[in-house]
């Protein structure tokens, strides 16, 4: 038997508005942009819900009912769920219905979709716990498999998750590290006892997430027959298809045929009696680990470098991320709930990603996915808001 393991990521950051130097000391609302533009968090949540979350979830609900053996998994950042509750409750209701089918597994992550693991282990643990509580409250389930922000992974993360009782953890199936090993098997992270590692099959995942609508791609258009055949021919126990949930309707628009593809896919795959669907926990319970995997250096699912340079690669990013974590102790001492929440919202990895200059060159603005006009504008708004936050911390002490 060979299993299909779907995991969809649902995340929306609290984008910092165009916060100017003159606002420092005068304005504590960093995330309340009310323009028509891309910095308005309510507007973005409503738009993504309408284009992607609602139609895709409604479709998945139909598919799970049609195919009782179909399984999928999700990871929601805490701040995405917060925003859906406030701005798009219909989407949140659909997600709850989806989980109620019993055919969906919810994974654990940090509430604020942060990189805290690499900067403040204590803060990281608090965010994971806060997230776990929210998932419990919202969906009535308890995460058993962990995935860290941007699928960032390292040996010590697996060791931490092992010690906290997680049965599995997810990472990128990046060839330079895997060597001869295939991502299509279950592995054991180095120096752990019980936990298992699942690796993203980025080729099959990206066929759907990135290449689906690309007319330059030699395999375009991607049909369910073709994809089903590839999966059937692939070696291994599990094909891990990990992707952003916005793939459906937002990254790949409806007119690309992505919804039709998703609707036909389970039926096509079920034609093959050697293929089934499993959640990450089921995959771990069904297949024995083939080998140990050693990843001493951080690997992520980002761009071609598969490391953290998209978040911490330039001097601005390092200055910003160092500045936010340097405030940690003082924020804790201030013991002010609102302050703590704002500080944590400022830790979301997206803020640092918007400051990335790697792909912002040669006038190719299309490679720069950001609500800001430039990485410099992103940095200026962030650092100004952070200056105000620091003033508040100093005042509260």
């Amino acid at each position, binding site marked *: 038997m060979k299993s299909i393991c779907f995991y969809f990521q649902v995340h929306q950051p609290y984008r910092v508005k165009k916060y*100017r*130097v*003159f606002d420092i000391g005068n304005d504590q609302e960093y995330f309340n942009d009310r323009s028509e533009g891309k910095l308005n968090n309510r507007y973005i949540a409503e738009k993504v819900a309408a284009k992607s979350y609602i139609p895709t979830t409604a479709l998945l609900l139909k598919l799970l009912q049609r195919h009782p053996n179909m399984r999928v998994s999700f990871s929601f950042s805490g701040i995405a769920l917060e925003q859906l509750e406030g701005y798009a409750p219909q989407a949140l209701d659909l997600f709850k219905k989806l989980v109620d089918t019993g055919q969906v597994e919810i994974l654990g992550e940090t509430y604020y979709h942060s990189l805290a693991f690499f900067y403040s282990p204590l803060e990281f643990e608090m965010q994971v716990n806060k997230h776990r509580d929210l998932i419990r409250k919202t969906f009535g389930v308890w995460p058993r498999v962990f995935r860290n922000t941007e699928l960032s992974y390292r040996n010590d993360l697996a060791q931490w998750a092992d010690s906290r009782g997680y049965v599995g953890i997810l990472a990128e199936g990046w060839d330079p590290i895997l060597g001869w090993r295939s991502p299509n098997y279950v592995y054991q992270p180095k120096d752990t006892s019980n936990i298992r590692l699942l690796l993203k099959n980025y080729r099959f995942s990206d066929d759907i997430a990135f290449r689906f609508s690309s007319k330059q791609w030699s395999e375009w258009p991607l049909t369910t027959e073709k994809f089903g055949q590839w999966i059937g021919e692939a070696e291994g126990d599990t094909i891990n298809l990990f992707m952003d949930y916005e793939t459906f309707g937002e990254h790949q628009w409806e007119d690309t045929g992505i919804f039709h593809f998703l609707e036909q896919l389970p039926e096509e795959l079920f034609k093959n009696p050697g293929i089934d669907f499993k959640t990450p926990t089921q995959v771990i319970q069904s297949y024995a680990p083939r080998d140990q995997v050693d990843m001493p250096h951080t690997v992520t699912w980002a761009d071609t470098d598969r490391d953290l340079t998209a978040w911490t690669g*330039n*001097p*601005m*990013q*390092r*200055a*910003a991320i160092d500045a936010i974590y340097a405030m940690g102790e003082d924020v804790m001492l201030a013991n002010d709930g609102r302050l703590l929440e704002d500080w944590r919202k400022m830790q979301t990895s997206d803020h640092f990603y918007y*400051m990335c*200059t790697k792909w*912002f*060159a*040669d*006038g190719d*603005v299309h490679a720069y996915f950001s609500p800001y*006009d*430039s*990485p*410099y*504008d992103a*940095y*200026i708004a962030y*650092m*100004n808001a952070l200056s105000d936050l620091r003033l508040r911390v100093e005042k509260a002490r």
Partner: protein
Amino acid sequence: MFGWEFPPYNSGGLGVACLGLTRALAERGLEVIFVMPRKLDLSVPWTRFVFADKDGKISESLDMRAVNVALTPYLTAETYEAYRRSGGMAMETSGHRPFYGPNLIDEVKRYAAMAASIALKEDFDIIYAHDWLSFEAGMEAKRVTGKPLVAHVHATEFDRCGGATGVNSEVYAIERAGMEASNRIIAVSELTKAILVRQYGIDEGKISVIYNGIDETTAPQSDGTLLRLHSLKQAGYGIVLFLGRITLQKGPDYYIRAAKRVLEHNPKVVFIISGSGDMERSMMDLAAQLGIASNVLFTGFLQGNDRYEVYAAADLFVMPSVSEPFGITPLEAMRLGTPVLISKQSGVSEVVSHALKADFWDIDEMANQILSVIGHPGLRASLAENGVREAAGLTWGLAAQKVDNVLKELMRAV
């Protein structure tokens, strides 16, 4: 190729552009005959110069003395007259004939008349004219030879006047006639192209946008320190630089108003204004009136190493132009690793990513960006690191390749 100025006898970007373009075209194997209105002591290995003085008689001897100030293409016809009378215009240096005539339009016409006889004597395929001062010459050459004409527009009368008011109708007529007579037009930016279409009614199908470049050899090299600036830096002052003509088009008043806003929040910033121009005095008055005179330093017009040192010393270079067809100075600053803030109303902002950008009138936003650059070394470092690399990629070779394509297309068509 008809031009008006050429380094080192130039005071503006047009001459620098002609130098960069002719060399890069020569490297591509094109033979360029560069025609100038006046005989000057010029010698560059890749271009043959022909001068249109001495009633069109082509002079082979290069015995002229250096000229202190050449006519700049930035003068309007009105200011030319006043400038000449005030003695600002250099007169004939080795004889008694005036260097340039009393009337700029007459001078342009006289150049055109001589261009015809030069065109008949020389062997070439395409006529190429830079800006309105040489458009009449280009048209004359086309009339007498029937060869195709390319007009390269570096600036229009609307840019020089900083808006529609004060546009000289004779200059406008020459610009329009020159572009209408041209087989192809090269504009230095989309911004300029839009002006040609909107204000001159030119068919956009014959306009190609080709951005200027900057060459390593024409890029500034710094080899010392300006002591005054060095001591300011040591005292913990941030240094912000404006470098250009102090005139309406360049937006120096917005710069000073932004400076006022910055100083309200951070008094340890010095604003340098480097250059000269008709608004120099009024800008000094404005700084005094706003109570920031001690933080605004006027250096006058800087040349050579001084110019490059002031670029290199600055924490931020600001170009707040109201209307800037291209704008080469930000690229010079970037080449030296100095972060830049440029107005969105500039051609260069279309081609540069690693720069801060603001509308020229948005004083608050400019002040916000200036304060951020001064306050955050990480921002400076990222802008500098990426800016150096980006500017290095914007070469005249790239521009010449595109010009070459336009010329080849034109040759196939005729």
